[in-house]
C-alpha cells in the first residue's frame, strides 16, 4: 500500500504539472505582458518587487528556437528584474514572437514560455493637433493628426460634451475628421480624441490615452459660468441677509412711525407727582399761593343759618283776609336740630 502511494504521488504530480518541473512558487507564476508603444519601442513586464520570488532572465526569438536572444535592456525594481525594454530594431511584427522566462531557485529551474503576435499588442500614441473648424449651418468639424506610422490602420473615438451637459458623448470615427451637425453658440464644448489599431490591421484591444482637449465656445460663456457660480454661492446669500436686516430695521422704524401717526395718550401724572407726593394734595401749597392770601379767604365771622319753611294751609281757612285781614305772616321757625333733613343742609354746611 505504501509502495503504491509512493508510486502514485509522482504520477499525479507529473500529470498536474506537465513535463515542466513544478516550481516551488507555483502559486504565483508570473505572466509576461508586452505592449508595443506606437511601434517605436516595446516593454514586457512580468511582475513587481513584491510579487516576484526569483530573479528572472528573458529570452526571445521569432522563427527559430535556435536563435534565442537574451534581453539587452532589463527594467529593474530594486535589483529585481521586472521587465524588458525592446528597441524598434528588435521588434518584428506579423511573426510569432516567443519569450522564455528563466530563473533558478532552490536548485530547480523555473521556466515560463509564451507566444505572442506583436501586431495585436500595439498601443498608439494619443492624437495631436486637435483643430476645430467652423462650418456653415452651425456645424463644427474636428480634425486631428497622429504620430502612428500607418494612420489608415487606425480607428478613433471622439468624446465631447458642452457645459450644459452632464454626461460625455462618445462616437466612433473611422477617418480623421469628426463633424458635429448643430451646435449652440451659447454653449461651451470640450473635445477629446483617442485611437486604436483597427480590425483590418490587427486585433489589439489597446486604446491610446485621451488626447489633450480642445475647446470651442464663446469665452463670455465660460466667464458667465464663473460669475454665476459666485452669484449663487456668495452674492445671493449676502444680499438675502442684507435685505432681511433692512426689513428688520424697517420693522423697528415702522413702530416709531406708527407712534408718530398714532400718538399715545399723554400721561401727565408725572407732572403732578410733586403735588400728590410732596405736598400731599395741598394745591395752594403746591401752586405757591402765599399764606396770607390763603388766610384771607378764610371767613372771620360766623353767621347763623336761617331756615325758612312754609306752613301747610288749614281747612278753615278764611277767605276774608283777602279784603280786610292781612295775610298770615311767615313766622321764622326754630333752627332744626342737627341731623334733620333740610334742602339747604349741604349748601351752607361749612361755617
Amino acid at each position, binding site marked *: 500500500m505504501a509502495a503504491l502511494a509512493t508510486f502514485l504521488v509522482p504520477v499525479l504530480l507529473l500529470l498536474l504539472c506537465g*513535463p515542466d518541473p513544478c516550481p516551488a512558487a507555483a502559486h504565483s507564476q508570473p505572466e509576461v505582458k508586452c505592449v508595443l508603444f506606437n511601434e517605436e519601442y516595446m516593454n514586457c513586464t512580468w511582475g513587481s518587487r513584491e510579487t516576484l520570488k526569483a530573479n528572472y532572465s528573458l529570452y526571445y526569438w521569432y522563427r527559430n528556437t535556435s536563435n534565442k536572444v537574451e534581453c539587452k535592456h532589463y527594467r529593474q525594481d530594486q535589483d529585481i528584474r521586472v521587465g524588458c525594454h525592446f528597441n524598434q530594431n528588435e521588434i518584428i511584427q*506579423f511573426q510569432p514572437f516567443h519569450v522564455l522566462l528563466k530563473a533558478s531557485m532552490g536548485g530547480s529551474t523555473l521556466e515560463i514560455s509564451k507566444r505572442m*503576435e506583436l*501586431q495585436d499588442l500595439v498601443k498608439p500614441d494619443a492624437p495631436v493637433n486637435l483643430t476645430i473648424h467652423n462650418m456653415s449651418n452651425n456645424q463644427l468639424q474636428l480634425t486631428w493628426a497622429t504620430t502612428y506610422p*500607418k494612420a*489608415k*490602420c487606425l480607428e478613433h473615438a471622439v468624446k465631447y460634451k458642452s457645459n450644459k451637459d452632464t454626461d460625455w458623448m462618445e462616437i466612433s470615427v473611422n477617418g480623421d475628421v469628426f463633424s458635429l451637425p448643430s451646435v449652440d453658440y451659447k454653449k461651451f464644448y470640450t473635445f477629446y480624441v483617442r485611437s486604436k489599431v483597427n480590425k*483590418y*490591421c490587427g*486585433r489589439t484591444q489597446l486604446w491610446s490615452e485621451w488626447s489633450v482637449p480642445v475647446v470651442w465656445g464663446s469665452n463670455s460663456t465660460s466667464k458667465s459660468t464663473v460669475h454665476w457660480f459666485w452669484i449663487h454661492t456668495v452674492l445671493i446669500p449676502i444680499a438675502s441677509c442684507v435685505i432681511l436686516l433692512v426689513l428688520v430695521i424697517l420693522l423697528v422704524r415702522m413702530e416709531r412711525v406708527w407712534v408718530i401717526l398714532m400718538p399715545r395718550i399723554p400721561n401727565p401724572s408725572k407732572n403732578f407727582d410733586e403735588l400728590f407726593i410732596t405736598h400731599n394734595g395741598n394745591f395752594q401749597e403746591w401752586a405757591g399761593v402765599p399764606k396770607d392770601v390763603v388766610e384771607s379767604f378764610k371767613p372771620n365771622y360766623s353767621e347763623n343759618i336761617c331756615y325758612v319753611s312754609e306752613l301747610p294751609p288749614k281747612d278753615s281757612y278764611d277767605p276774608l283776609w283777602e279784603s280786610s285781614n292781612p295775610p298770615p305772616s311767615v313766622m321764622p321757625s326754630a333752627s332744626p336740630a342737627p341731623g334733620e333733613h333740610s334742602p339747604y343742609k349741604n349748601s351752607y354746611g361749612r361755617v
Partner: protein
Amino acid sequence: MFHAFFRSTLPVLPLLLVLSPVNSSSCAMENKTTEIHVKYENILIHDINELVNISAQNRDRCCKNKNDKNIKVFFCNDTQEIESLQSMACNMLRFFHKQRISKAFRWKAAFVSCGTLQVLKCKCEGHRKEKICPHVNVFGKEDTETGEQSRKKCNQEVCELKENISSLRSCWNKFEKIISR
C-alpha cells in the same frame, strides 16, 4: 538547313526556363491591391473573424503542450504577402477531409480558404481548389456527434489547423497594413 534551325532555337527553351522567375505567382491580382482591399474589408474579414472565433472555441491547452516542431509554420514573408496567403489558403484546404476535425470547423476553414483564393485569384497545386471550393458554397450543418468527439480530443490536425488560421489572419493584417497609404 533545318538542322541549323533547330540547333539554334533548341537551347532557347531551357534558357527561357532558367530566366523565368523562380517564384512566379499563380495569382492574377498581384497589382490590384485596391480591389483586394475592398473585397477583404467588405466580405472576407467577417468570415475570417468567425473562423477565428470557432478556432478559439477549440481547446488549445493541449496544442501548447504539443511539440511545435511537428507543426508546420507558415510565415508571411516580406514583399511576398500574396504568395504567402496563397500558400496558407491552399494548405488549409488539406483539412477539409480530416474527419477528426469537427465538420463545422473544417467547412468554415475551407470557406475562408476558397474566399482568399477567389479574392486573390490564385490557384493551388493539384487542382485542390477546383475540387473542393465548388462544394463549399453554403455553410453546411455541423455533424454534432463526430464534432463533439473531435472537440473533446486534442489531436495534431486540430493544432495544425489552428496554427494555419492564425498565420492566415496575421498575413492578411500585414497585407492590409502595407497597402493602406
